[in-house]
């Protein structure tokens, strides 16, 4: 009997804390557990009893990397409960916030978290000596995303200006135009990112599974829309709980998110490009076409490693879309007034890592009675395990440290955010 173990006790270059344990006996996977050991913080517990006004700033703190997504999902869900329709200007500013966060987060993932694996470095800092201009480009793009978030939201991590029905203050138009110029310059950097992502040697590994994303009739969805999938799902946010649930599957400790009647699914840039690529900007479409010609990579793709290309193509789109929105904005001060109403509200949005769901039940005093939040990584954990189950047999002949790195790469490729998904943890995890 030959036994092989793959063990990573604290996954590096991901956000949050997770471990991986695999035991293979005679070529058969006997045990495969992706553990999230990030301690739960009970957001859905302590939100009960708080005022609706505080919710956006509180849920922002679920995640330091995608605070905007949590804020925007919460704001939309509360507006849904109160029956508020925000103005077009408000929606455009929210889109800019969300897109700026994609630019920051996608750059962070492609260059800082993912690329070092494929280029043979332990971190982006270690890459700096040999890849100076590449790292400089990454820093420049990430700063641009951060500066745009800060211009609209006040600061880059946990922005402050977005509130129910509007913004407490509007960005300075001169600064907006200055950032527009930097966005113009960033177009070539975003395209260079696609070239980099497409040049990485990724495994030839295909695993068809359901891909889910938000779809909007107006745009490549980022702010709102319906939940659609490659298997024909097409539902509104309020219908989410009738179709997507979680279950506990021993021996894994994290809950598994599944589509009722089907199984695991993938959310994130790859799912979005697969489902909504017709709505990408012209430059982003051209970038996709270039990748097809140069590398033979076609979308829809069910190779999870093509997520890096999808993420880079979305960078091109995000830069284009920001310029488009800045060009159509004519900022005017809008008064914010509305009535608090008892009710339930639901929202879905596209965080950098994929589908994010928020819903709240609010009483007539505006106090939260129930909160339900499912983050992109929470959606993806089950699918990561399924990917690993299919992927591990292809690396069994490799030495242990190489096989381990390959498995880590599968997970890092999802750009997981385990702080977000920790409320997902069902049991205390025993660690060796």
């Amino acid at each position, binding site marked *: 009997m030959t036994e092989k173990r793959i063990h990573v006790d604290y996954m*590096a270059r991901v956000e*949050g804390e997770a471990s991986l344990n695999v035991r293979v006996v005679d070529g058969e996977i006997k045990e495969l557990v992706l553990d999230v050991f990030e*301690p739960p*913080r009970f957001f859905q517990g302590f939100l009960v009893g708080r005022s609706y006004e*505080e919710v956006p700033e509180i849920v922002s703190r679920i995640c*330091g990397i995608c605070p905007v997504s949590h804020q925007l999902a919460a704001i939309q869900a509360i507006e849904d409960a109160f029956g508020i329709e925000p103005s077009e200007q408000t929606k455009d500013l929210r889109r800019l916030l969300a897109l700026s966060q994609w630019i920051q987060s996608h750059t962070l993932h492609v260059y800082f978290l993912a690329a*070092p694996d494929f280029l043979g470095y332990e971190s982006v800092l270690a890459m700096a000596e040999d890849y100076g201009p590449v790292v400089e480009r990454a820093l420049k793009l990430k700063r641009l995303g951060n500066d745009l978030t800060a211009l609209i939201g006040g600061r880059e991590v946990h922005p*402050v200006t977005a509130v129910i029905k509007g913004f407490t203050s509007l960005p300075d138009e001169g600064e907006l135009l200055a950032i527009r110029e930097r966005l113009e310059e960033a177009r070539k950097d975003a395209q260079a990112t696609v070239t980099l992502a497409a040049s990485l040697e990724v495994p030839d590994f295909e695993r068809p599974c359901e891909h889910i994303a938000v779809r909007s009739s107006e745009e490549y969805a980022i702010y709102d829309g319906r939940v659609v999938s490659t298997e024909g799902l097409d539902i509104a946010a309020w219908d989410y709980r009738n179709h997507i649930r979680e279950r506990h599957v021993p021996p894994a400790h994290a809950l598994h998110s599944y589509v009722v009647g089907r199984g695991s699914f993938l959310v994130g840039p790859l799912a979005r490009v697969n489902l909504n690529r017709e709505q990408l900007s012209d430059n982003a479409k051209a970038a996709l076409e270039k990748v097809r010609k140069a590398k033979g990579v076609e979308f829809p793709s069910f190779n999870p490693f093509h997520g890096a290309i999808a993420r880079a193509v979305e960078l091109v789109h995000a830069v284009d879309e920001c310029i488009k929105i800045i060009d159509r904005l004519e900022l005017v001060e809008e008064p914010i007034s509305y009535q608090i109403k008892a009710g339930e509200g639901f929202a879905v949005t596209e965080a950098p890592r994929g589908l994010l769901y928020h819903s709240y039940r609010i009483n007539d005093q505006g106090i939260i009675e129930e909160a339900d939040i499912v983050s992109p990584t929470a959606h993806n954990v089950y699918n990561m395990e399924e990917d690993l189950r299919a992927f591990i047999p292809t690396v069994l002949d490799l030495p242990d440290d190489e096989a381990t790195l390959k498995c880590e790469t599968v997970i890092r490729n999802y750009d997981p955010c385990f702080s977000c998904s920790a409320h997902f943890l069902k049991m205390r995890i025993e660690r060796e």
Partner: protein
Amino acid sequence: MTQPKIAIFKLSSCAGCQLEVLNLEPYLLQLAGVLDISYFVMAKRDNAPGPYDIGFVEGAVTCGEEIAKLKRARKDCKVLVALGSCACYGGIPSMKNWEPQREVEKRVYEDLSAIESTKAFGIDQYVPVDAYLKGCPVSKEELVNFIKSTLLGMRPYLRPHSVCVECKLGENVCVFLSHREPCMGPVTTAGCGALCPARGKACDGCRGPANDPNPVSLAEAFKELGLHRPDIIRRFRKYAGATLEFEKGVEAL
């Protein structure tokens, strides 16, 4: 000069303060040139064991394992720094501290037999702390200044005064007096440049208590604005409810 060894540890948190380190884009490569960033799991795969010269701890302490991890970090680091309001005071996770633990947990999990979570506290509840970098998230400017001062062997400048001082310096309209918004600025530590009041929003108290604040008077002023008791309590028990200063605001009612 040998490069000081830096470690960045994560407890219960959103990773936003660690991200602020990576958000120092203009200085990041320079920093990496003068510091040996030897333990930073979110950014690196090869992480060296201690001892370290400076350890930054992000996050609140919410379980036994974290207490053990924190105590190891204290032993390993010459200087231990609380990075952000969670590590300083318990932060947002400490919002659960004023309800029975089981009640809060029950709203999230069906089976509580395996949940083992304590009340959320800042790290100085368990170990001595050498410096506090406040804020949710931590201020990048203060972080860079702290690192520079430490490298130069100088005492870092960490603001003792309240947000009101920065608000006046910024010539902002007072949201409390002019817009009658319940602003936490008078009792909250400066260092954010009065970020929220400058954008027409009341200070939320995310940087925790300033030196020698008067929370009792502020709680009374909130009452005069027409706020009810639970509204006032929610304001004091958000980022730093576990501090004696903000608890005084609650007790004043």
